[in-house]
């Protein structure tokens, strides 16, 4: 449990792009080896990221019970696992341990010669950070037995248990990256847990129970096998052999740990079902292949990808749409409303986060209205799988935005919370009204609130600069004009979408005084501006603004000219993740859009030639991240707040956000 905790406390930084594979180990505190849970707990609660996703749901198989029961009693009491389960589990292991205590201690002491800094926490980190990086295997091998892992599967030879843990934690790390949004309910800090005993109680999912069961079985089997081997040659007693062994074993870790890994995969799968999958790492071959087999939309990936962004999906735009549309009638599983939305996302008919989210929710609403529970099935379960299918379809059409992920999470939560005794029409009606309420309250009402707040910041004679197109900003500008404020608007736009044109057209038709320019003129036009209004795709809990590419540039230039930057963002777009750069999570648009310039359309042949050039790669990034220091103020439903307050809002209101 300790090591697991340690891993959770670490902010999830994914290293992508260029970095040296043999990075020096991060400095980790030197603690007594065995009883780590105390100090780690402390760091967890103190860290602002304590409520990082995928908290306690980590499969019990992987969680080694610590030697001192008292150590993990607290955590177990809070854990969503039913009491009898882990108790039995622990008993098993305790029993095993009593058999082999002597044997596992020997390698432990021998390996104790390794640097003390490499305790369990570090190794866990390194694996979860660099899931693919197995090079520092010696460190790992040294660290695992040290960090209290000897207790986990005491029955096995150390090298075996180590491989298990390594693979498990590696996959864990990967999964954690994949599930960006994670489970918000599973909170690691204690006080919050106590606040929500109910929600935790109903979280003893089937998966967990099964995992526990399988863990027990595995432990039993292992104990048996080990016992035999012990009788035969007493492997454990020979520490030298044990220490040597890891190298060859490492090359094929799954063999020795097939059982536990299987359970881990099962649990992982179950978990993935719950969570809107916002990201998959597209440089991970096996996963991509798996996803391809499942995929509804046939997609061919572009060959020429920019190396730094290999982990993001990039498809040949041309091939997707015809493929999807030709399968119109064969996709029975997808409701036609959802299908239409997916098609519109894919074709780019709908852009803008709010609109995409609303369109998606409305499609879901329609799908729920048309839904009938098949016989012998539970509405909650079946509807959730249906929605999951829709969501993965939409992801295939276009990666979801953060706000859509939040909305999906809300909907699933709503489904999960449905009372069991509710009849089907009632349940459907309640879900539909929930969706309607979400749209009304979280999007439309909050837009109105934001408009009210932001208008107070507009004074007569000001020059407001905005970038691209954001529907909230448009509402603000129109409303301010309506109530008679005198101001001028500068619309900064960027290729290839030129969304600002839409805004410009509407503003001019309402009689606003506008200037339209492209982003390359930003430093000139910024001299005139007195205020910058920006829209947002999402705001992360470190205050980073995630928005249309170019926003960061505008914000930084504004900062340099000491122009206040006001970001308008509905609270449902806040996300508890932390984003440090715009490489980890981003979206790649159609590369041809960058290459094809309308005025040069006659040279289409030339661009065709360019397409086939191996040395040429096109990059059409969709988003970028603006560090919080360039943002003066965020206007949200909760009023005008500094970016540093985002984590507070996320923490305090998230529950309310999700459950309404």
């Amino acid at each position, binding site marked *: 449990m300790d090591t697991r905790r340690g891993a959770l406390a670490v902010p999830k930084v994914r290293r992508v792009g260029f970095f040296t594979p043999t990075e020096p180990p991060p400095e980790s505190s030197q603690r007594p080896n065995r009883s780590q849970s105390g100090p780690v707990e402390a760091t967890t609660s103190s860290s602002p990221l304590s409520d990082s996703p995928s908290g306690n749901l980590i499969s019990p198989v992987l969680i080694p019970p610590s030697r001192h029961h008292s150590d993990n009693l607290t955590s177990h009491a809070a854990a969503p696992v039913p009491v009898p389960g882990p108790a039995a589990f622990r008993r098993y292991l305790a029993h095993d341990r009593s058999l082999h205590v002597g044997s596992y201690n020997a390698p432990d002491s021998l390996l104790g010669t390794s640097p003390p800094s490499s305790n369990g926490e570090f190794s866990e980190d390194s694996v979860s950070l660099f899931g693919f990086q197995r090079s520092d295997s010696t460190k790992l091998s040294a660290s695992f037995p040290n960090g209290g892992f000897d207790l986990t599967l005491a029955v096995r030879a150390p090298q075996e248990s180590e491989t298990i843990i390594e693979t498990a934690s590696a996959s864990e790390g990967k999964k954690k990256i994949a599930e960006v949004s994670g489970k918000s309910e599973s909170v690691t800090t204690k006080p919050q847990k106590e606040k929500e005993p109910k929600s935790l109680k109903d979280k003893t999912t089937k998966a967990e129970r099964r995992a526990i069961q399988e863990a027990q079985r595995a432990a039993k089997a292992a104990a048996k096998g080990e016992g035999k081997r012990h009788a035969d040659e007493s492997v454990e007693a020979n520490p030298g052999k044990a220490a040597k062994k890891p190298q060859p074993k490492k090359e094929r870790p799954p063999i020795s740990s097939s059982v536990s890994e299987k359970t881990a995969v099962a649990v992982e799968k179950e978990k993935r079902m719950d969570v809107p999958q916002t990201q998959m790492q597209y440089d991970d071959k096996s996963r991509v292949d798996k996803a391809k087999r499942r995929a509804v939309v046939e997609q061919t990936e572009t060959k020429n990808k920019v190396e730094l962004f290999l982990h993001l999906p990039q498809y040949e735009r041309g091939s997707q749409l*015809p493929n999807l*549309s030709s399968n119109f*009638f*064969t996709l029975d599983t997808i409701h*036609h409303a959802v299908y239409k939305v997916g098609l519109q996302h894919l074709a780019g*008919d*709908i852009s803008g986060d709010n*609109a995409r989210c609303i369109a998606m929710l409305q499609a879901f609403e329609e799908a729920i209205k048309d839904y009938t529970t098949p016989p012998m099935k539970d509405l909650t379960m079946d509807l959730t799988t249906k929605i999951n299918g829709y969501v993965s379809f939409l992801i295939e059409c276009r990666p979801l935005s953060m706000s859509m992920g939040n909305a999906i999470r809300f909907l699933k939560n709503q489904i999960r919370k449905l009372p069991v005794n509710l009849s089907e029409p009632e349940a459907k009606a309640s879900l539909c009204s929930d969706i309607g309420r979400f749209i009304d309250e979280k*999007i439309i*009402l909050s837009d109105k609130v934001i408009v009210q707040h932001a208008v107070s910041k507009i004074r007569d004679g000001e020059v407001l600069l905005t970038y691209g197109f954001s529907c909230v900003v448009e509402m603000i500008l129109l409303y301010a004009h309506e109530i008679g404020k005198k101001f001028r608007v500068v619309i900064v736009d960027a290729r290839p979408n030129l969304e600002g044109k839409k805004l410009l057209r509407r503003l001019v038709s309402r009689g606003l005084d506008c200037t339209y320019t492209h982003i390359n003129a930003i430093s000139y036009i910024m001299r005139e501006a007195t205020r910058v209004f920006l829209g947002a795709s999402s705001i992360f809990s470190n205050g980073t603004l995630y928005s249309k590419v170019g926003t960061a540039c505008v914000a930084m230039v504004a900062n340099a000219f000491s122009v206040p930057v006001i970001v308008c963002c509905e609270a449902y777009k806040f996300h508890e993740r932390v984003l440090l750069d715009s490489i980890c999570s981003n979206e790649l648009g159609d590369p041809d859009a960058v290459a094809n310039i309308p005025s040069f359309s006659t040279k289409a042949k030339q661009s065709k030639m360019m397409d086939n050039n191996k040395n040429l790669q096109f990059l059409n990034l969709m988003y970028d991240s603006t560090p919080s220091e360039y943002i003066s103020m965020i206007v949200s439903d909760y009023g005008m707040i500094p970016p540093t307050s985002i984590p507070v809002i996320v923490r305090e209101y998230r529950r309310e956000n999700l459950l309404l």
Partner: protein
Amino acid sequence: MDFQVVILAGGFSSNLVPLVSKEVPKALLPVANRPVLSYVLDLLESNNLKDLIVVVEGEDAALKVGGWISSACVDRLHVEVAAVAENIGTAGALRAIAHHLTAKDILIVSGDIVSDIPPGAVAATHRRHDAVVTVMLCAQPVSGPSESGGSSGKDKTKKPACEDIVGLDSWKQFLLYIAKGTEIKKDTRVNKSILCAAGKMELRSDLMDSHIYAFKRSVLQEVLDQKPAFRSLKQDVLPYLVRTQLRSDVSSDQNNVEENGNGKDNMQNNEVVLSQILSNASLPSFHQVYESGLDSRKTHKCCVYIADESKIFVRLNSIQAFMDVNRDVIGDANHLSGYSFSAHHNIVHPSAELGSKTTVGPHCMLGEGSQVGDKCSVKRSVIGRHCRIGSNVKIVNSVVMDHATIGDGCSIQGSVICSNAQLQERATLRDCQVEAGYIVCAGGEHKGETFARR
């Protein structure tokens, strides 16, 4: 997906006389020994469309088509055969079966199509744009129907190219103008308001209407009701909808506005904001721009789906097309036929008997139970079931239907011999059509003739 499929299988097409007759309606004309309708049904079935309505002109024809359908695919498809009166046109046929139509959108497919273009693509485009009508356009066959088959073309069966002239917007999404090429003599009229609204119109003559349409049911029925004079979908209904797309008097989307009326004031306000957000997010089509320019204008969208050029599309609407289809299905487009080809690129049924020194070339098909005598040569031809062909017969680029009898020493080039026809010895046919059951006398030499009983 809330789509209903209507197949307009027609009746006895006058274009195809003498191939069609009372016994063989157009839909059952064999293409590579399978009725042409089966190709359409296969195409739809592969797209998971199994509830179909087949509209046939004339009771007799309907009985025949229905009989064939029930024998061929009763277990796989749910097909409803509707008989309508003859010569009421496609629009009339739809009017007659209007009470069967209930779905939100209707896919209308002509029954004489041999193609591998997925109809789903049309439906998807239709749904995406929420259009009133979506037309599938496909590239005009490059080689043209006339110069097909090498030696056989260039004669009186060649029809004037009846291309369509279509006008598209700059994104090739909307249909702005459509006319039949043959109707345009010297000048034509283009609606000015549409041209102004769209800004740019691309007129193309290399595309042809494929007779696969997706209609919004409510609109289609309204138009059919309001304009009783309309006879043809292609010539009346479609141009009408295209013409009036900016001054629409069909109630396409107005029902949802009414629905909102019963809500509370606040809710309604929210709805307005909602729809505004949604509409603001998308790039407005010229329809919306036009609509917003002047109040109380209603528009509807007419979309096009342009099929990929690599796809095969042939309409069986002339004798020449019939020859082409037969040739293509066992030749270039052989994946459509559903047969497996031998190493020699031909299909010879195992029960067919070949005489000594008889050669069957590539791209040929020999039906079940046919007998071919000695020293014959068959090239690029389709021979039906149970034909009896004598010795020293040469068959090139031709179609011989079931149960035909061909005497010794005949030479057939570029011709169609219908079922039960008989060719006596040493008859030489070139670019001829022989009606079912006709007997061609021995020794005659014919070129470009049509043999039919008057």
